[in-house]
Structures are given as C-alpha cells and as structure tokens.
C-alpha cells in the first residue's frame, strides 16, 4: 500500500495541553477515588440522608462469617462486588487500593494532590480555549452540516474498523473531543466548585442549577465515569487506527494521511 504524505496536524498548544490534561486527569481520577472512599456513597439533593433514603449508590461492606463481603447498592438494588467494590483484600473500602492515590486511606494527601491537578487542568483548559479561539482550532472541533450528513457512514466505517486518516478530524472525533472539552470538563470543574462551601457563598445559584450539593457530587462522579469511558475508547481507537502514526502526531504534530487525501473528512 502506498504511503500518503505527512501533514502537520497538531499545533504545539494542542500537543502540550493534551499531555498536561492526560497527566492531570490520571491524578484527578485516582485521588478522586481516594476522596470518594472517605464516604463511599452518592445522594440526590442538598444533604446526605442518614435518617431518610436519598442514596443512589452505596459501596458498603458486610461481615459474612469469616469473610468480608463487598455490597454495592444501586438505587436500592444490592450486588455482591467482593474483591472490587465495597470490600477488597479483606478490608472495607469503596474502591480498591490499586485504584487510589495513595493506595492506603489518606484523605488529606488525596485532597492536596486533587486540588493541585484541578488547578493545572483548569488553567491549561482556559489557556487552550483562549488560544484556540484566536487561532481557529475551536472551529475544527465543531461538526459542520456536511460532517453531520457523513455521520452514519462514519459510524459504519468505525464499526467495521475502517479508519480514514484525513487532514482533519472526522465527525466522530469532533463529537467526542467537543463533548469532552466543551461539556464534560466544564461540568467537572463546575460541579467540583459546587462542593466548596465557600464557593457556594459566592455563587449560591449554581447549587440550584444542580439541585443541591449532594447532587453536584453525584454528577461529578457520573462525569468521571464518562471521562473514563472516553479514555478507554480513545486508547482503543488509537491502537486500532495505527498507534505509531497517532502517537507521532500528538508528540511532534506530524501525521501521515491516506494517499487518496482527505476527501472524506473534508
């Protein structure tokens, strides 16, 4: 198969912020699970129901003879999740040690690292927004009408693992990246801020947008799960579409496109 030309596809700002976000999200996820483990339950509303039930998820542990069982309760339905959620390694904790930083219970350290990377993520996201508005990169992420017409075909091609390597992002890439950058990450930052009692004093109206601090915490957790899902699909797509080419483009900016060019993506 003939090789297509190398094109300069990723600007330095895109590449730099990509890696800052990758590192930040890694630490935010694992310290976030550490923080969650301090009270491994999620609720809807303003407060946590101790004498009434507004829980949507509880990762609990129950003594069963000699062994400790992990019990995950989702909207009142119980599941045995011993070894993964609720109890693992004979100890009661929401998420297992391998999924948290530090690996043992240390809420204070988890918080320090979480807030540090919350800053690196927020500030680089802001810098990226400003520079992308100025250099037009934002427009490259917003699907055009012709993109949307190509959507069914693009879905079909991805499902058949047939990847086109064009000069521009295909419509599924645009939707995924725009969804993360314009919806999920801003949601993460805003729901995170809504858990701060001092920020609540500054912007009490934001609590009403979510329906209370505990709902904000639940949304924060749900968006985390969506970001993990994005990460898994993102890595899978890279591996399937040609990991060396994809890695070169996000490290050096240079990307080898298909010989027939990018008629499809245009």
């Amino acid at each position, binding site marked *: 198969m003939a090789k297509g030309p190398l094109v300069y596809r990723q600007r330095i700002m895109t590449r730099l912020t990509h890696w800052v976000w990758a590192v930040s999200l890694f630490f935010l996820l694992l310290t976030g699970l550490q923080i969650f483990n301090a009270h491994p339950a999620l609720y809807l509303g303003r*407060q946590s129901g101790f*004498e009434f039930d507004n829980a949507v998820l509880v990762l609990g542990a129950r003594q069963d003879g000699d062994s400790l069982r992990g019990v995950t309760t989702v909207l009142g339905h119980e599941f045995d999740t011993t070894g993964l959620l609720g109890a693992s390694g004979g100890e009661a904790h929401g998420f297992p040690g*391998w999924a948290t930083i530090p690996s043992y219970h240390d809420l*204070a350290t988890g918080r*320090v690292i979480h807030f540090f990377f919350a800053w690196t993520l927020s500030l680089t996201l802001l810098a990226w927004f400003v520079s992308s508005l100025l250099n037009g990169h934002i427009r490259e992420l917003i699907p055009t009408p012709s993109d949307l017409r190509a959507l069914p075909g693009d879905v079909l091609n991805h499902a058949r693992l047939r990847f086109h390597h064009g000069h521009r992002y295909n419509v599924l890439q645009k939707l995924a990246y725009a969804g993360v950058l314009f919806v999920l990450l801003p949601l993460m930052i805003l729901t995170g*801020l809504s858990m701060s*009692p001092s920020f609540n004093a500054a912007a009490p109206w934001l609590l009403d947008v979510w329906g209370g601090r505990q709902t904000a915490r639940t949304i924060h957790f749900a968006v985390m799960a969506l970001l993990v899902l994005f990460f898994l699909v993102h890595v899978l797509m890279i*591996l399937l579409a040609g*990991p060396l080419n994809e890695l070169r483009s996000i490290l050096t900016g240079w990307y080898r496109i298909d010989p027939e060019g990018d008629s499809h993506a245009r």
Partner: protein
Amino acid sequence: MPADLSRRLVLTGLLATPALLSGCKVFDRLPPDGATRNLFEGANELTHATQKLVARDALAPEFTRADIRQGMRPNGVTNPADADYRALAANAWADWRLTVTGAVEKPLSLSLPDLMAMPSRTQITRHDCVEGWSCIAEWTGVQLSRVLAEAKLRPEARYVYFRSMDTIERGLSGGIKYWESHDLRDALHPQTILAYGMNGGPLPVRNGAPLRLRVERQLGYKMAKYLAGIEVVPALADKGGYWEERGYDWYGGI
C-alpha cells in the same frame, strides 16, 4: 499497519491497563514535608486566595425548617471522656466558663447565661464534612464578632485560636485536646457564631455542648466543639489545628 499487529497491540494495551494502575503504590511515597508535597500544597495558597477573592463577605446559603429532615450527624469525638468535662456536664455547665484571652484589651470569662444574654443569631445551614457528606441543621448562638468586640481586639490581632475540652488522641506524651484557628476575615463574618442551641433545643453533647463554633463557609473540621477558650494572636504558632497537623488544609473552604 498489518491487522494482526494492531490486534496484538490492542490486547497488550488492555492487559497493561490494570498493571499500570496497580503501579499506583509508586505514588505512596509523599513525605509530609518533602519538596513534592510542598509543591502540591502550594496550590492550597492559590485556592485560599481565590476563595477570598470570589466569596468576599458573601453569606453561606441558608435553608428553611422544611430542609431539616434528620438529626445532626455528629463526627469526631461525640462523648468526651475527660474528667473535667464530665464534671462540668454533671453540674449542667454552671461552673463552665469561656475565656477570651491574648491580643485583647479586656480578657473575658463568660458563663453560658452571659453568652445567652447577648443578642443571638439563628441560622439554618448545611454542614459539609471533609469526607463528603452534608447535613442541614438549625444553629443558635452569639456572633463571635460581638464577643470579640466586647473584648476589644488589639491592633496586632490577626488570628483566633479555639481550644476544646475533648481529648481527640491519646499519645505517649499524654492526651491531645482538639484545637482550631481562623483569621479575622472568618472570625468577624456575620454567620460565624458560638452556638449553644441546635434544632430548637440546647446543643447536645455529641454535637459539642455546651458551646461550639459555626463557620459556615468552611468544612466541618474547622468548627471546634466543646469550647473552653478563645485566644487572639498576631500569628499562628503551629499549623493551626489538630487536622492541619495531620496534612489537612488550614483554609477548609473546599
């Protein structure tokens, strides 16, 4: 790229993910006073400065009686075993006094009736524990700003220490009693009260009887229970509190 090579890379990637994650013990070595820890903790200063800037003197959200749906969940020490505390409780706090000392013109020693005779403030607020849970309750007490005004702050006054009667930890060198501290920005905030009442009744022992601090724009650990003394100082002499000495941020606003 040949299809079989791609497939092999996918499989390797999927298998490597848990191995990568279980490597997180790599990040366990973060000594309390190491350079990395200091770098990370530097972000706390930025967080604190930002909160001061955006929240200014704003009030924490207040709620209605309909939002009080349960008893106030207690945390930390819920029944002090200290002999002096038990003796004071047995005598219905008749011998208990709150001392106000340090950088003040007029040191005070106030009884519970003294505090109750001062103008009171009642507020229904949400208590947020650092662990992540929240609970709404009604608090009644005297604004700390009124007590500090009566004691008359000296010009060098910058911080206020809150000394508790409960022993939170027993070590080799004896017991450690709970303590906390705030700057004047939060000490003089209108919602910062010394609470003696909760949900329409007297403050229960598990929630800090006879007197506890409420600082509504910060997390639960900043609100010392079982108060015995208030000390006004020009500068903090330590990390500012029991949990702060154990790695928690001094400004508990997030």
